[in-house]
């Protein structure tokens, strides 16, 4: 039931977002909530469609070194836009390390050095500063981490409030949209002003997703987003991903094979810091090219 609801709601919102690229739809007044908000989207969409590449992330010989030991080594990968790519592999193989390289998150690790090339949305990553890149490439973490001093409402708009100085008038609408997209709206719409910490773990995680969506990134990185959650919350989040992938590029690290099979279009298998295989999820799970991949998927190790 929850999923059904989710699907309906998400369709509603997806249209809103599409609207910006398809001006012919705009006669439908329901979806025009605020010109400014829509225009910003339009600008973003236009710019990236202008570049006309279907590749969201592309890396060349990407390595990350911790104290001169490689966490990942020479990773070459092209990740398709508006799709879901699952990253799988045994613990310690470098999945998080790969993900964190894509939005300069290694900045926070004092001894990490990133080498190689990363291309994000058609531009070399070094052309962005660390703030811009993170606006384009959002991230959801394994453990839910809402801001403890803020209400649910403030959590959702935190990325906007602390950054662009959006007009206050738009906040209500953005909060609603984002919470609907992450499937949390129904549960919290009457208590938006209470502390985010009073939510359950699964709700907190969906709040974190809403918070990320509110910034309207183009790529969303998720590092084991459901590993701390119950099956129902997991299903909710997977449903959101499924619906949102038409407009967002998702890269999801997961230890759960079924999840990878369920939600992803492409799957990349990492082993000991190297990218072993990357292709359509159906291919990876049915007839993997590499022996290592097969062993992992069939549960021989890992």
């Amino acid at each position, binding site marked *: 039931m929850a999923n059904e609801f989710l699907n309906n709601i998400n369709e509603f919102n997806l249209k809103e977002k599409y609207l910006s690229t398809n001006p012919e739809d705009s006669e439908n007044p329901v979806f025009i909530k605020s010109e400014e908000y829509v225009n910003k989207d339009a600008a973003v969409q236009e710019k990236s469609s202008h570049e006309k590449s279907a590749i969201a992330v592309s890396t060349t010989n990407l390595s990350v070194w911790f104290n001169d030991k490689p966490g990942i080594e020479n990773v070459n990968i092209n990740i398709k836009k508006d799709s879901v790519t699952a990253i799988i592999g045994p613990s310690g193989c470098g999945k998080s390390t790969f993900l964190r390289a894509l939005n300069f998150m290694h900045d926070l690790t004092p001894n990490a050095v*990133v080498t190689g090339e990363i291309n994000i949305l058609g531009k070399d990553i070094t052309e962005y500063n660390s703030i811009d890149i993170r606006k384009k490439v959002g991230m959801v973490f394994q453990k839910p981490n809402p801001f403890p001093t803020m209400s649910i409402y403030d959590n959702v708009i935190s990325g906007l409030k602390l950054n662009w100085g959006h007009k206050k008038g738009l906040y209500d609408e953005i909060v609603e949209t984002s919470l609907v997209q992450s499937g949390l709206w129904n549960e919290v719409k009457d208590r938006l002003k209470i502390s985010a910490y009073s939510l359950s773990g699964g709700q907190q995680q969906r709040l974190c997703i809403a918070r990320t969506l509110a910034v309207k990134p183009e790529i969303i990185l998720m590092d084991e987003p459901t590993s701390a959650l119950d099956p129902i919350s997991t299903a909710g989040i997977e449903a959101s991903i499924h619906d949102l992938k038409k407009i967002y590029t998702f890269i999801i690290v997961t230890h759960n094979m079924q999840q990878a099979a369920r939600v992803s279009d492409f799957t990349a298998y990492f082993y000991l810091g190297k990218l072993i295989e990357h292709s359509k999820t159906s291919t990876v799970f049915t007839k993997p090219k590499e022996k290592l991949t097969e062993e992992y998927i069939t549960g021989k190790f890992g």
Partner: protein
Amino acid sequence: MKKSTGNNSENLKVIKSKNHISDIFFEKTTLFFAFLIICIVFWIIYEMFIDSAPSRDAFGWGFIFSQDWEPVKEQFGALTFIYGTVVSSIIALAIALPVSLGIAIFLSELAPQIIKTTLSFLIEILAAIPSIVFGFWGIFVLAPFMRNTAQPFLESTLGFLPFFTGTKIGFGLLTSGIILAIMIIPIISAISRDVLKTIPQAQREAAYALGATRWEAIKMALLNAKSGILGATVLGLGRAVGETMAVTMVIGNRAQIKISWFEPAYSMASVIANEFAEASGKIHLSSLIEVGLVLFAVTFVINSLARFLIYSTTKKLTVK
């Protein structure tokens, strides 16, 4: 970002994040304030050096070894003050150390939770009471008590020792040592308790498994924590050496070196507190500042040693 020096990553193109200009500005701003602290400390040292120059030129190293302190004759030496500071601090340590250890053991190993929090809170308050209040209490409560009760008792029991003889006026080395002890007990016990807490519980359990009594298990923990506890003690010593008001009010303020602990004496901090505002001339002022410089040097050495000891134990233990 750290520049990589290793084998593999040498010739590769390093991806460096560009920080936003506002972030760079923010880091530099905080750095500026941090740098201010360093400047202030060097400035303090510089001032003390410059301002004590006349005295240092006039008396040289003899300043430390001379007992003369005669403003009228412009003769100055710091030995009596050094003596007063050292002896009162040692008395304080001798009293405070066993008591603080007892408290630390009680707090970390024995007390039930409710007593633990209450006692910790009380000791925290004890640490926060201004020294002027201790001094004032010392004048009106402790000194009369020493004069009328404690000193006669000590003389009749331990009078064969030269420390416990002489005129019983209540103000002197022993009284200031006791006040100082009360004042440093909170520091020593709090840090010792924290150090003891870092000793893994497994060690105690191992001792019990070998048939040790509770005290023996605690003793083992103490042995393991000994350099941290020593550090706490030395830190307490640093406090005692630098304490001014409480000592000034009960030490008697007489520039003399007497073996008896009942006798009035004078400490480095006290002489500065008493004479600085009314210093009679340039050389007098400069000598007081040199006393301050000696005091600074002593506390600096003591505190560095303490930090080193505490750091080395807690580090060793947390790494384990």
